[in-house]
């Protein structure tokens, strides 16, 4: 069984981004980029499936600028067998990425696609679901546990208020939540070996996908500064404030 894993190159979670003066976006010049943490979990899950003998091949895919290949090398160093880079300098929105992934699925015929539930840059949380719709495959999103037997896959999902278990048929889409696993560190020998693993580059045009953005960003602003909290003297005062000031009860 082939497993396809989508990985995104994002601004490293340690970087404190700043909004550009013209409010067109955040300043990403000269900052560190890394693999989206949820995607590390996705790679880890796929590699574990391979180690268990469930998966036969793990293919990592990334879309975007040339440096995405570095992110793919990370995936290869963690244990993916080969990588595909869909090279594009355009802004790639979730729908475009889902369409590109669909085109790659058509070509590679994986039984399972694992994605992060969201990317920590735009936090869209859409790509996996869109891909499931485009491919007409079942989906198990926000996974905290994945079990495969034969053509059945059981996914425990983290949902508001608890856990939900869904039983799906392969081929399927899984998106990862934080507790699914703890990704391994790429070892030095594997970092070096990853340089030699196959990495193919394709373009959206070659895949026949129009990636033109459908959404327009009007402006980006800093979140409002948090005001200092207050101390309340009595429970009564608290209830009153919740009711009349915060209006949450």
């Amino acid at each position, binding site marked *: 069984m082939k497993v396809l894993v989508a990985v995104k190159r994002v601004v490293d979670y*340690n970087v404190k981004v700043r909004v550009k003066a013209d409010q067109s976006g955040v300043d990403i010049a*000269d*900052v*560190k980029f*890394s693999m989206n943490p949820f995607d590390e979990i996705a790679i880890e899950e796929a590699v574990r499936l391979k180690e268990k003998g469930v998966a036969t091949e793990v293919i990592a895919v990334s879309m975007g600028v040339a440096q995405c290949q*570095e992110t793919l*090398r*990370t995936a290869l*160093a963690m244990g993916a067998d080969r990588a595909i880079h869909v090279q594009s300098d355009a802004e790639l929105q979730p729908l475009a990425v889902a369409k590109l992934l669909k085109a790659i699925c058509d070509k590679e015929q994986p039984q399972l696609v694992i994605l992060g539930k969201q990317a920590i840059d735009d936090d869209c949380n859409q790509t996996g679901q869109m891909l499931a719709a485009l491919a007409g495959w079942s989906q198990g999103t926000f996974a905290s546990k994945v079990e495969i037997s034969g053509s059945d896959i059981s996914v425990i999902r983290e949902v508001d208020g608890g856990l939900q278990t869904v039983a799906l048929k392969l081929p399927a889409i899984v998106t990862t939540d934080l507790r699914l696993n703890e990704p391994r*560190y*790429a*070892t*030095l*020998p*594997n*970092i*070096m070996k*990853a*340089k030699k693993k196959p990495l193919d580059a394709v373009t959206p045009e070659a895949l026949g996908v129009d990636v033109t953005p459908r959404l327009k960003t009007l402006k980006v602003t800093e979140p409002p500064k948090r005001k200092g909290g207050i101390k309340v003297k009595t429970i009564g005062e608290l209830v009153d404030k919740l009711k009349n000031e915060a209006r949450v009860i």
Partner: protein
Amino acid sequence: MFDAPPLPHYFSPEHTQFRDTLRGFVASEISPHINDWDEAGTFPRDLYRKAAALGILGLGYPEKYGGTPADIFYQIILAEEFARTGSGGIQASINSHTIALPPLIAAGSETLKRHIIPSVIAGEKIAALAVTEPSGGSDVASLCTTAIRDGDHYVVSGEKTFITSGMRADYLTVAVRTDPAVKGAGGISVLMIDGDTPGLTRTELKKMGWWCSDTAHLHFDHCRVPATNLVGTENRGFKTLMHNFNSERLFLSALAYGFAQVCLEEALAWAQQRKTFGHPLAERQVIRHKLMDMMLRVDAARSLVYDLAYCIEHGRGNTEHLVARICMAKVLSTQAMQFCADQAVQILGGMGFMRGTRSERIYREVKVMMIGGGSEEIMKDLAARKIGI
């Protein structure tokens, strides 16, 4: 500035990847425990295996022994990331093979290499280098421990001191005098001695810092060592020992400015949050100047080390001058560490005197950095000679 931005002229994506691995390893496996380990005066032996599993111990060694060949920038990254623990002890012990194995790699027989290197870089065995003697460390050529040939053995007698990992080491790379008639560098050889050799006694030494690292005094009393454990040619050991000094010193330099940076980061965080007389310390000009004085020293030392690493890697520049500049880098970096430790403890106030802050520990661990691996005086003297003064 603090977390060096990508410098593509020095670092490839693989370097960055290795740094990420190390940073994660240090943050999860070492930093949370380091205070306890330091207080306990030791750390679990299992850490060697964990470091080995990530390929850290095999860094730079040939694949046939289980290592991963890598350029010098990987060593620099290793030093910088281990410095983040704020503990010199942990890296000194975990990395003691980086001074113990190079003589073996450079001159040892294939049998000896195959016997020792794979188990050490797999984290199963520990290796230490024993050169320094009670009678002196700077003047290596005058060492007194003798190894007298007796049939197919050497009989080793003498003392070694201040030996890092000396208590736990399974293998000791020992500098000995095989020709007692020759007083200088000429009569020196290198022998691999097993830690359980009869006649070897070890005593633990108590220190100002590096508490979690075991440092030993070794006493060799007529230890019989197979002659096949000789590394390289008899009486030609001095050169073999000197061989690794450049990379050791560059590594120590990177560690030193790494520790300096840790002090800077701790002091800055404190200065921004600590209010006195209604204002954060970081708003006071005196404190801001201190912070910048720290930063400029870190930056200068790091820039010099990166430049030297580049020159070594690409074979640029006059060799003699390179050696001189490596000596200067060690002086510059350890002085940066000393300055930053001092300033950081001052900025932290009473807190800087308390065990548990990284600056407190680094303050206690400055001196060994200025003494070990070539003391400041020796570094300057050597640099002057190499430059032709």
